[in-house]
């Protein structure tokens, strides 16, 4: 991986981090409401995977999906406006933080039922295969979703039908407040995927370069027609599950220990040490990102509300609601 790419990887992580920090602030100011799930600590995963995702590829993610949406190309302004509940939001204010969508960018949500996006990703892959389209589907979900039956049903069929889907399991060790060891007899998610004859790799989810490399391997494998690939990213969220979580289930020492592996700090230090990047370049990244995010917030703030008279639009397609696939 050349120097420029590694710098780019760092920059994408910084973009996610800054957006999430701003979201937390805006939540405190009550600009953003509802549930808000932050990705801080897990940025290497989205950055590493999304670096391989092309325009024509499809992505389905979870309710912790701001970063994935941003890296799929949805402008920060449309994401922020969505969280503000505004008309210019990427879901016209009807989805909020957990339901970011973009037809243009083939971003299919933002599904807030744990495991809900998994069969849909398999279905998107089935459509691509059946229609002979050069398209991969990337499906993000947490280790908590692997406890759902629908993961197993979907994994089996993806493998049986050799479908072009990359399963990206973001194992952050807690399903809300329930630790993996306390809820699963088999704590290796990769082992569960292998049980369905799916090739799987364990990835250091705190290391952007490992995330990038192994995602690349997975993409190559899927593109070769070998069927689905499963990546288990071992990662950690630094923040509570949502803004309502008092974090009774884990100690500060544990969180601090993981923070020492901050994917941004470690990659930055490494690139600086190796001379792949200068402090000035990093400062420039930060300045660019600050401008991007502040203008996104200003855009969101200025965006109008959808008139309440339009409340019942978009229940059924085909009348006045635009899009049909």
């Amino acid at each position, binding site marked *: 991986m050349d120097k420029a790419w590694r710098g780019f990887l760092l920059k994408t992580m910084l973009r996610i981090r800054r957006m999430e920090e701003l979201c937390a602030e805006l939540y405190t100011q009550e600009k953003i409401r509802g549930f808000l799930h932050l990705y801080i600590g897990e940025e290497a995963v989205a950055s590493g995977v999304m670096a391989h995702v092309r325009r024509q590829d499809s992505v389905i993610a979870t309710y912790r999906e701001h970063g994935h949406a941003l890296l799929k190309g949805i402008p920060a302004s449309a994401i922020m406006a969505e969280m503000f509940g505004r008309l210019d939001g990427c879901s016209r204010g009807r989805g909020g933080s957990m339901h970011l969508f973009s037809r243009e960018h083939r971003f*299919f949500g933002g599904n807030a039922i744990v495991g809900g996006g998994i069969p849909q990703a398999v279905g998107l892959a089935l459509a691509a295969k059946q229609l002979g389209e050069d398209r991969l589907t990337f499906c993000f979900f947490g280790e908590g979703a692997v406890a759902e039956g629908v993961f197993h049903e*979907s994994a089996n069929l993806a493998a049986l039908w050799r479908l072009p889907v990359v399963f990206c399991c973001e194992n952050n060790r807690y399903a809300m407040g329930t630790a993996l060891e306390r809820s699963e007899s088999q704590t290796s998610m990769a082992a569960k995927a292998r049980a369905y004859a799916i090739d799987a790799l364990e990835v250091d989810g705190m290391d952007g370069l490992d995330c990038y490399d192994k995602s690349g391997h997975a993409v190559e494998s899927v593109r070769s027609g070998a069927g689905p690939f499963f990546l288990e990213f071992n990662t950690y969220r630094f923040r509570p599950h949502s803004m309502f979580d008092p974090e009774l289930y884990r100690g500060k020492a544990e969180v601090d220990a993981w923070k020492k592996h901050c994917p941004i700090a470690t990659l930055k230090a490494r690139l600086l040490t190796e001379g792949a990047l200068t402090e000035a370049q990093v400062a420039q990244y930060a300045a660019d990102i600050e401008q991007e995010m502040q203008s996104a917030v200003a855009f969101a703030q200025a965006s109008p509300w959808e008139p309440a008279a339009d409340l019942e639009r978009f229940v059924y397609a085909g009348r006045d609601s635009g899009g049909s696939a």
Partner: protein
Amino acid sequence: MKRTYREALREAIDEAMQKDERVFLMGEDVGAYGGTYAVSKGLLAKYGPERIRDTPLSELGFTGIGIGAALGGLRPIVEIMTVNFSLLALDQIVNSAAVLHHMSGGQFNVPLVIRMTTGGGRQLAAQHSNALEGWYAHIPGLKILTPGTVEDARYMLAQALEDPNPVLLFEHAMLLNSEQDCPETAEGFDAWHARIRKPGTRLSLIAYGGMLPRTLEAAETLKGDGLDVEVLDLRCLRPLDDAAIIASVRKTHRALIVDEGWKSGSLSAEICARIVEQAFYDLDAPVQRLCRREVPMPYAKHLEDAAIPQAADIVAKAKEMLR
């Protein structure tokens, strides 16, 4: 030409597959077995395993896959063996198929058809005899079709597939062998509105699906007794054809709703409420309902018969209302 309800369903699938390469059928035992109710018999040989796709027993998984395939540009027909098993797929139907269009601000839609067998009457007891179509009709974002005639079995599917929204088609198990005349073309066919199956003046019998033939039978009996009643077939439970219901009630001034679902919190309750809201002053008598008795379906034949409205029950209730 006469054909059975089952043959009509098969012809509809066959025609849809022929017309549109994007259409495929997916579900348990739809292929090699020929369909649990032999609806898709012969189609595997004709279209191959990619378009007549057998699945494992994974209702939630393959229903979700149907949603994804629809989002990805295909036109899936997902077959769930019976409405009872559709409860295993409820999350994908209610939390995704029904809401994706709205939740995405109108960007995505789910052109998915889910077919399933519904209803009791075959001594299959409590886990295989549900009639939950009225339940599904509660959900905004879904459309619900309930073919009660061979013609509807033949032509509703095509319009369901043309619709850009998720459509649930409830095929009644007791109707599969019924044989009726059926027009050879779909010209003028409209799946989405109620139809008067027998005009009358004294009372509106409002029914759909499996209750339709016995309601018509009851109407014939009543006619023999000099009581001219109307039979309105709802056909589409969501959106509900208010105009047709209200027009019929305004004409006859009396309404009896015959519904195979349970009474409490049901579609029959909804229809009753709409009549009261919109046509209260046109009524000459309180609206009445004949529904499934409020028990899980028993196995024994005489108990099952007692649990589901029969033609004789309809006749008796109608006479009571017209006394």
